[in-house]
């Protein structure tokens, strides 16, 4: 697992509303919380 203090790699992925979302678009604007989960229709 990536470690605290590491630089996060950029990514570019489509979302459920058809947007392309990148990490770079939040740089200097917002923190980002990534919630990974095994599959849709599983708990939070």
């Amino acid at each position, binding site marked *: *697992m990536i470690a605290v203090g590491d630089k996060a790699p950029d990514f570019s992925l489509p979302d459920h*509303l*058809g*947007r392309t979302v990148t990490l770079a678009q939040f740089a200097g604007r917002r923190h*980002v919380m990534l*919630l990974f989960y095994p599959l*849709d229709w599983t708990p939070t």
Partner: protein
Amino acid sequence: MPAVEALLPRFRAAHTQVLGVSVDSVHCHANWGKDLGGISFPLLADFNPKGALAQSLGLYLEKAGITDRATVIIDSGGIVRHASSVTPSGQRDIGALAALCEEIDKASTGPCEDFAPPPGVPEGATLYIKSRCGFSRATMLAMDNLHIAGKVPVRNVTEDPSAMETLRRIAGKETAPCLIVGETPMHESKDIIRRLVDATAPL
């Protein structure tokens, strides 16, 4: 995810953009979001190549072909401030994560932008859809996910001849889905969804 949706105001106040990630496709995400009563933060499809983002963070479970149930918080400078796993069968404490984001935001010295209130759905908008049409369905799913189903009138031109007549008169053709605001038609489902997203849940 509904627990996250409920606490979005706290994450937003802490200048934190929440992003859900799994190996499911965008279509799967959209349908799941609807089942949950709407998800107005992005669910990312780490679908093609499968699990690429999870792999880059060491969170992909190769044998099972799924990602771990893990949380990574990255500050506005791009540095990882938190990384943890509750294992695939575990459950996250979203309240504790909100508190953690508030702490990280407080300690952060980098620039941060407030979440501006969205402009809202355009006045006098009506959505025209067709039955058995994937593009119409995608638009309706987006409306559900953005919590605006019922706020924008929807007319089905397959079932309602008068709706078809109005669509033909204003848009000059029978193509649906079509979002009409005032007398101005917008046709492509991608453009319509983008318009609705910008109005209600911009990033």
